[in-house]
């Protein structure tokens, strides 16, 4: 038994971390975000070369056949760097086709998604009469005769995607190649500019159903999203903590470094204590998706709810300790704060996942 990372996994993270430090430093992040594109194609291409596009895709479909835990480990590093690449939507689209697609569909799309020739994303959210929905089982978008009708919101990096996996009425999934006629795409002004969002209106848009999208598979795809969000928030919140530590050590007030005031020191210790142990929570959730089917749904709900919530508290403390400077656009804190806000809300709020957890626990 080993509750820890393998040497390969540690190497993967180290490699990525160095890559991000070199190729996606905050100066570049700022540039990308100010341009409002929220997408660094060069960095994404380099990441694709490292195999990020098809990390969990079997070798026969052109992937590197790693585990969901590996995917989550990548997500942590991307969160840590607030890297502006379409990893989240792409990974979920890949998972959808991998687990829910027919053999033919897999052969058609997995290799081009793995290589990055096509960029994938997912379209789950809708505004319905029942309120906002994220769960595929509640989708109202209609698929009939191979045509899609309905409106989706919050499609990550939707404006750059070639292929979008769409949840449809009845709880299934469908794939749209976005070049198809009849999909009206509207970029939104996203708060987290490292992961811009679009709305898509489907009006008779040609789409293919994914035939194996039964409830368990659809849940699994969502759960992968949840654990990626949790890992991303963990990375982002640690980055906020580190930035706060650095700032508190350097910045002086009344002739003393901030970090030497016990009040400040204790706040920083509380931030780290709230956060650091949760590493084991998302590791376990990801591992459960790989190996312990019974445990995965509950643990993914818990990891998403707990970690994305705690990360916001970490962010709040980071701001308090930075004082006014943290509130400015010029301060780097904002990128990670907004990243954490995105992670907290995307695919449903913590309180929704806690309610789901309670049901899953059989209470």
């Amino acid at each position: 038994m080993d509750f820890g990372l393998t040497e390969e996994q540690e190497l993967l993270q180290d490699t990525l971390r160095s890559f991000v430090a070199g190729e996606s430093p905050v100066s570049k992040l700022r540039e990308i975000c100010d341009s409002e594109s929220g997408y660094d194609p060069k960095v994404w291409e380099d990441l694709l070369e490292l195999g990020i596009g098809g990390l969990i895709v079997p070798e026969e479909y052109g992937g590197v056949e790693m585990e969901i835990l590996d995917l989550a480990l990548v997500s942590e590093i991307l969160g840590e760097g607030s890297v502006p690449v379409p990893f989240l939507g792409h990974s979920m689209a890949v998972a959808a086709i991998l687990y829910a697609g027919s053999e033919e569909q897999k052969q058609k799309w997995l290799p081009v998604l793995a290589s990055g020739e096509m960029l994938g994303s997912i379209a789950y959210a809708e505004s319905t009469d029942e309120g906002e929905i994220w769960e595929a089982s509640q989708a109202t978008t209609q698929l009939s005769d191979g045509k899609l009708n309905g409106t989706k919101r919050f499609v990550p990096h939707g404006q750059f995607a070639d292929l979008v996996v769409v949840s449809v009425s009845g709880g299934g999934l469908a794939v749209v190649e976005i070049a198809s006629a009849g999909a009206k795409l509207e970029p939104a002004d996203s708060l987290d500019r490292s992961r811009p969002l679009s709305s898509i209106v489907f009006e008779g848009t040609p789409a293919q159903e994914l035939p194996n999208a039964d409830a368990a598979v659809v849940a699994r795809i969502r759960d992968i999203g949840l654990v990626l969000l949790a890992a991303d928030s963990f990375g982002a919140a640690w980055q906020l903590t580190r930035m706060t530590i650095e700032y508190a050590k350097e910045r002086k007030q009344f002739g003393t470094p901030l970090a030497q005031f016990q009040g400040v020191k204790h706040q920083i210790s509380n931030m780290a204590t709230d956060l650091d142990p949760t590493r084991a929570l998302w590791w376990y959730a990801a591992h459960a998706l790989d190996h312990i089917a019974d445990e995965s749904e509950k643990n993914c709900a818990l990891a998403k709810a707990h970690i994305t919530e705690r990360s916001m508290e970490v962010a709040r403390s980071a701001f308090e300790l930075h004082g006014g400077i943290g509130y400015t656009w010029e301060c780097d804190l904002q990128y990670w704060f907004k990243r954490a806000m995105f992670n907290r809300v995307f695919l449903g709020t913590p309180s929704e996942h806690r309610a789901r957890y309670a049901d899953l626990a059989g209470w």
Partner: protein
Amino acid sequence: MDLKLGKEHEAFREEVIEFLKGWPLSGEETKLPQVEQDQIFRNQAIEKGYVYRDIPTKYGGSEQPHDVIKDTIIQDEFRKVGAPGNIFSIGAAMVAPTLLECAREELCDRFVESAIRGEVNWCQGYSEPNAGSDLASLQTRAELDGDEWVINGQKAWTSMAAEADYMFGLFRTEPDAPKHKGISYLLIDMKAPGITIRPVKQINGGLEFNEVFFDNVRTPVGMMVSERGKGWQVSRATLKHERNLIGDPNMLRNTYLALVELAKKTIRNGRPAIQDPRVRDRLAEIEGYVTTQEYSGLRQLSAAAKGEELKVMLPMMMNKLYSTDTAMMLTRLSQDIIGGDGLIAPNDAETAMAREVQHTPGRWVYEYTAAIAHSIAGGASNIQRNIIGERALGLPRDLRLE
């Protein structure tokens, strides 16, 4: 305890209500630009003694005897009908009272009236990049050259700098004096050569603050308020007024009411969010804080009216920290209610801090991020905790290296 107004005050309220029937204006006057309509009505109100009550008549005020209850009645009734009363500007709320308290008559003559009328706009120059809560560390210098002060350095967190005609601020005039004692309070023409203004964009897209750079900016010696090295004392008078501005409990109540509306209007899981027992519980919990803040404010007001501020020093010192935490709790719940809409940035209207803030999800994203900023404006929370601990509860001061 008597929350009923006395007969005199009830009569006064009736009088105010009667007067306010004249708003909005009618007839030909309605064709005038809104600003002019406002000014016509405000002048009538000054004549009645409802506006600028603590400003001498010679400066355009109505010079009324101090009466906090009447102030409150006027404020309430004016707000109800949206009538133009006291202008809420930095100039009217902070500069005018400070000058009246600390400046020579000449400066009062020159600046008070235009400040309260909003004809001349002011901005504040206290904070610097390396002196946020610690004003004693200010570095921006003013050196005497003949009958002018020559200013070099930089101010930060200056609201409305671009719109301002003048700045009031603290500058180091006595480099050899101990920290506090080397600072003077100067007024500066914002159109003077050498001033550069750079707006600071906030993380929620707002543009409330600026940096102001000084490169050999000159201001006459007569523009000093009080004396050389007394800037610290003057600033405390101003700061008192700023703190009052920030601790406004109505702001919190309004935000809370808007949150309740949000919870009523937003459908989640097939029903209004406000029907969710968890939302109800959290709203009621927040109501506990908001109501506390409100009644505590009323108590402070009453004590002030009786000149018994000493009795309420403790809650007064706590206002800032209390409302900061409450605002955080409140806007945090808003994020749970708006859900995915929290993924979208506030738009220009939402970031413009308009009088009528939009009831949109984006407004709540703006408020949430602003709540985080609240822990900063007017002194960081840890400084507040020190002040409460040391000045109100009698705890010993921090150990210092100095």
